[in-house]
């Protein structure tokens, strides 16, 4: 027999009750305890997310340069400037292109690898570890390793190409830099693979067996069972990958060739970033830290935020037509 307790609202003393069915609300403690427990996040979110965002919004209506105290309100000037700024449009197009290529490829690649590894074969654990490994390597190290692999004179890839008789390709500068940026993002697709693998392993084997007894081939089983069951996961991954991809900044900075040549150097300077890698956030970063245009940079940040919100909203809306929810989404009650 289980004892469920409740607090008497008047006295605050616990009252024992026997055999009461679950699921009904009952008050057993003052609710301030809930707020006390969640207060770190609430205060932290206000102070470290809401305030900075609000501050950025205020800045975006000024011509603040980050140092001097003299600034003035410029109204919507920063936003109209951004709208007419060809650099902003070019970087936005570049970011869109990057997302259009990198997001589907990394999702499909992750799913494909997960499908391969989901078969009960030998040494699958080893392969899973190998594919997963790159996604935990720090981004700085990833970029440095890619620079060594793709170096024009001393890199592995051009070494192999030379062996086959192909001339050295300057991978790290335009027009090839963009390709390397995409490859770098694909190298980390193991994170998605692990998620998909977890989802695949949660699919009841009876479901797939029943389908094959009914004469469904592998393709139809994939299309009608595996894909629908995985769709919430794919959707969640799509949203997350899309958001991270649209705000990509670090990889182009780190891949930018140093002035003196070589793998290191110049990483905190946006001005060496190749045109092909000149994503939206690279421009924002340059506005802040190369040109000290804090007001303009803040406006660009807010524009990106609105763009990301809009894109997310579109994806969310589309989800009703292709995301299949088998069970109630709300997992908060057990």
């Amino acid at each position: 027999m289980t004892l469920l307790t409740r607090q008497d609202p008047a006295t605050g003393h616990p009252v024992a009750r026997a055999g009461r069915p679950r699921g009904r609300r009952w008050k057993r403690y003052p609710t301030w305890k809930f707020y006390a427990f969640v207060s770190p996040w609430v205060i932290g979110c206000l102070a470290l997310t809401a305030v900075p965002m609000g501050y950025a919004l205020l800045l975006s209506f000024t011509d603040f340069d980050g140092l001097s105290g003299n600034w003035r309100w410029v109204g919507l000037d920063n936003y109209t400037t951004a709208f007419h700024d060809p650099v902003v449009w070019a970087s936005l197009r570049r970011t869109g292109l990057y997302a259009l290529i990198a997001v589907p490829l990394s999702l499909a690649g992750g799913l494909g690898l997960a499908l391969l590894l989901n078969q009960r074969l030998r040494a699958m654990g080893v392969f899973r570890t190998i594919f997963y490994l790159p996604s935990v390597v720090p981004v700085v190290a990833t970029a440095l390793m890619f620079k060594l692999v793709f170096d024009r004179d001393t890199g592995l890839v051009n070494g192999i190409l030379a062996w086959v008789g192909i001339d050295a390709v300057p991978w790290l500068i335009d027009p090839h830099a963009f390709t390397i940026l995409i490859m770098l993002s694909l190298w980390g697709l193991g994170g998605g693979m692990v998620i998909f693998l977890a989802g695949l392993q949660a699919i009841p084997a009876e479901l797939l067996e029943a389908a094959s007894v009914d004469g469904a081939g592998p393709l139809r089983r994939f299309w009608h069972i595996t894909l629908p069951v995985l769709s919430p996961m794919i959707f969640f991954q799509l949203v997350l990958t899309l958001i991270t991809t649209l705000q990509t900044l670090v990889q182009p900075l780190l891949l930018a060739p140093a002035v003196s040549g070589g793998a290191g150097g110049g990483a905190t300077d946006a001005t060496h970033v190749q045109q092909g890698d000149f994503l939206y956030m690279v421009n924002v970063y340059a506005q802040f830290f190369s040109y000290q245009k804090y007001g303009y940079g803040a406006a660009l940040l807010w524009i990106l935020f609105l763009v990301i919100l809009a894109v997310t909203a579109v994806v969310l809306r589309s989800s009703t037509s292709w995301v299949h929810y088998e069970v109630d989404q709300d997992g908060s009650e057990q």
Partner: protein
Amino acid sequence: MTTPKLTLSNRDALGARRGRRLMYAALVLLALVFLAPLVWNALYALKSRSESASTDVHVLPQSAEWGNFHRALTMIDFGRYTVTTFMLAGIFALLVTASSALVGFGFARLRGRGRKPLFTLMLATTMVPQILTVIPTYVIFSKLGLVNTYWPWVLWGLAASPFHVFLFRQAFAGLPRELEEAAILDGCGYFRIFWQILLPLVRPVIATSIILAFTFVWGDFITPAIFLNGDNTTLGVAMAAGYTDGGITLNNVLAAGTVFYVLPVLVLFFVAQRSFTRGVATSGLKG
């Protein structure tokens, strides 16, 4: 598998075997491609200075130059960067785990008005681009004199992280109610229930949270690059700046430094791969 196998003709079995062999070949090839940057970097760290500048590329170093590893540690203030990185990562990991456990417990076990919308809001904030807050936070913190100190990481740690909160909430929500009900009957307060009864039961999640937070800060580039300057920076930023000798960049020494920089993460990964997988899988399974 207890289910009986469906009848397979010999031809099917032969085809299956061939397909399997083909798949293994594809997997091995892919694995080589995925490992190439790591292996190439490790081999590069052994190249001599003249070989690392030569266009005559060999996969294996012509002579192993172990001195590169020593140079990587001594040419720059490696020790100081390592201590800084370790401190920042450690402080953040411990604080964010503690605060997130509290918040996760609150969401999982306590009730209050607005609990559900608050939880939804918290999940929604994970969608706010991080970079959007980092730069304005820098502007504010520079006015408060918090730039170039450990304080930003302390504050971020105290503020809890939605992702870690989510991990803890899931773990706490899965524990039976009877545990705390018995404790309440015995007159135990909620903080003690949290601290003495439920927290010890979610030890694997604590480990996961600490490991993930630690590797996150260890691998972070943009925050230390913006918030710390010069000598006070982290190993990651130092590696990005590279090694130079009289204006000449030394890629072989840098490769050796990169090995040292990546090593702790790889060790953690192999020791606690389950933690990484759990972190990723939990975040992915729930929308």
